[in-house]
């Protein structure tokens, strides 16, 4: 298989979808307004009617639409996921992005004409795990967890029968996706079953007597900021805590950095990655427009043998710390 270096772009709303299509996305990914996808946030996602119109718009411009059905249905509630798959198939989406084996099995039998992509939420991080999903459900593409180095990706590529998609830009997930119940432990809403992660409805910023600001999730202080610091969003795995050896407080899991692999694009293409995924269905239209345009230009330059101008990409995250995460070195671990 030749590396196509497709650009897979986030579409949190119909308006963002049109922006991503116009900016040169090869494919967009989106979800319905319910627990069937892992970005079940208020104000995001699509009604069936909106998805119908969006599929028409995207296809008219040569862009594919991938529907995320990548949460884990709790027993007794499978109909919501089956119905979402039926609707997506009827509206002509180009692929389903799935994690749950029961959902994958249903789609493989009921809608065999639609491609299955394995979500990062399935956490398939070895050739054997990926082959399990390929052989069981006919998965055509795996979205790799953000924990592998480029040499490891190159090796996996040789051992699996499907395409590889990797994240290149946006939120930097720390935990093995699909195996994280941190949000449910503090808030009672589950990332796996409800598609919720550190939900805004549970967030409070509390000004303390000394002028510092606490960002809280469900009453738990996830981080505290000095009067001159900008208070960050209380995402549990990006918070500061104390430990016996770290009484001063430290980022126990990861600093609030975002992933930016723009410098590694040529190596990733060479390693056989078929598709690059930009995270951020919760982001604004202008963010999506800027990121998609910049990556479109960079990928086109590389494919044409030109040196990509990545200055624009670096500017997009100006003021925010960036990382190449696990991709560059295993010292990240």
């Amino acid at each position, binding site marked *: 298989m030749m590396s196509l270096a497709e650009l897979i772009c986030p579409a949190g709303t119909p308006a963002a979808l049109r922006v991503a299509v116009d900016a040169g996305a090869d494919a967009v990914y989106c979800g319905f307004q319910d627990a069937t996808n892992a970005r079940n946030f208020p104000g995001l996602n699509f009604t069936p009617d909106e998805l119908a119109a969006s599929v028409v718009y995207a296809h008219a411009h040569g862009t594919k639409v991938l529907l995320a059905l990548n949460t*884990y*249905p*709790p*027993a*007794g*509630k*499978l109909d919501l996921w089956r119905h979402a798959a039926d609707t997506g198939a009827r509206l002509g989406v180009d692929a389903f992005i799935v*994690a*749950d*084996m*029961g*959902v994958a*099995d*249903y789609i493989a039998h009921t809608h065999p004409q639609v491609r299955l992509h394995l979500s990062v939420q*399935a956490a*398939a*991080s*070895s*050739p*054997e*795990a990926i*082959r*399990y999903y390929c*052989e*069981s459900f006919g998965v055509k593409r795996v979205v790799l*967890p953000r*924990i592998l180095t480029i040499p490891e990706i190159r090796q996996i590529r040789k051992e699996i029968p499907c395409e590889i998609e990797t994240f290149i830009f946006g939120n930097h997930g*720390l*935990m*093995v996706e*699909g*195996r*994280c*119940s*941190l949000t*449910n*432990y*503090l*808030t*009672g809403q589950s990332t*796996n*079953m409800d598609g919720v992660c550190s939900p805004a409805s549970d967030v409070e910023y509390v000004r303390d007597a000394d002028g510092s600001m606490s960002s809280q999730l*469900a009453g*738990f*202080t996830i*981080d*505290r900021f000095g009067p001159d610091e900008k208070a960050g969003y209380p995402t549990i795995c990006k918070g500061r*805590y*104390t*430990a*016996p*050896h770290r009484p001063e*407080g430290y980022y*126990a*899991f990861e600093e609030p950095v975002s992933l930016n692999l723009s410098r590694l694009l040529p190596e990733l293409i060479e390693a056989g990655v078929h598709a690059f995924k930009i995270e951020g269905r919760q982001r604004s239209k202008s963010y999506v427009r800027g990121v998609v345009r910049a990556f479109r230009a960079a990928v086109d330059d590389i494919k044409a043998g030109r040196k990509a101008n990545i200055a624009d990409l670096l500017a997009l995250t100006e003021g925010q710390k960036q990382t190449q995460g*696990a991709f560059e070195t*295993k*010292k*990240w*671990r």
Partner: protein
Amino acid sequence: MTKLTLGPIAYHWSAEARSDFYARIADEAPVDEVYLGEVICSKRAPFHEAELPATIERLERAGKRVILSTLAEVMLKRERKATEDLAEIDAPEIEINNAAGLFARGRRPHRIGPFMNAYNEATIGWMAAQGATHVCLPSEMPAPAIAVAARAARELGLGVEVQVFGRVSLAVSARCYHARAHGRTKDNCQFVCEEDPDGMPLRSRDEQPILRVNGIQTQSESYLDLLPETPQLVADSVTHLRLMPQRVDMVAVAQVFRDAVDGRLSMGEADARLAALSGDARLSNGFYHGAAGYRRIAMAAPS
């Protein structure tokens, strides 16, 4: 009869500590089944692998059924090899915690571990068709989902297990947070996790205990306690109740559960004993009741 099981030790206990622990479990603990093996970190396995055959023999001689659990996270060559090797074993039984293990095992009989995300009847049905004989449900599942999943699994002839005691696994990662706390990387960790046999406590900056770090795993600060819920779990077709090893008197913990399940001890008395045995650890059951996992929800008084 409802079986009590002892889950695999999540922490980096020394070979000696493990062997003493299992000797006592063999002689004294009223558990029916014991899961052995390193589930969290492949770097730890060499420290206690040599003792494994003797431990298996010791437990089996005491009438316990032994099951070997595979790694939850499989990425590196040694992890792939370890998973493949375990998947070749027919006796004792094996419990699989990663899809790489399912791939290696094929349709030969196996158990599905708590890391496999068997959340619903369709997934359980798929797994049963591939040779699964037993399934441990994810710890964050609420009661109504447990009931539906357990009945579906029983109809397919599977054993159904739910964790009822001990810290809950909330997340796993490729990164080692124990090493990170000590300014090291995973490759250069110097096995610093051994210092924390019940996990390394993380507190919020306003001093609330919140999480525990165990190598690449993040656990709940509280111990899960579903003792008061066991009659309902049993009524809902759950066949196996899992106790996770913590640094408390696990023989006594097992005895409390056994006596309560068998009706020899009132639930009130049993729960008071369990709280005393758990020392400073808070007890929680929020997940079961569809609430935040750390919470402790009082059961409604029986009518």
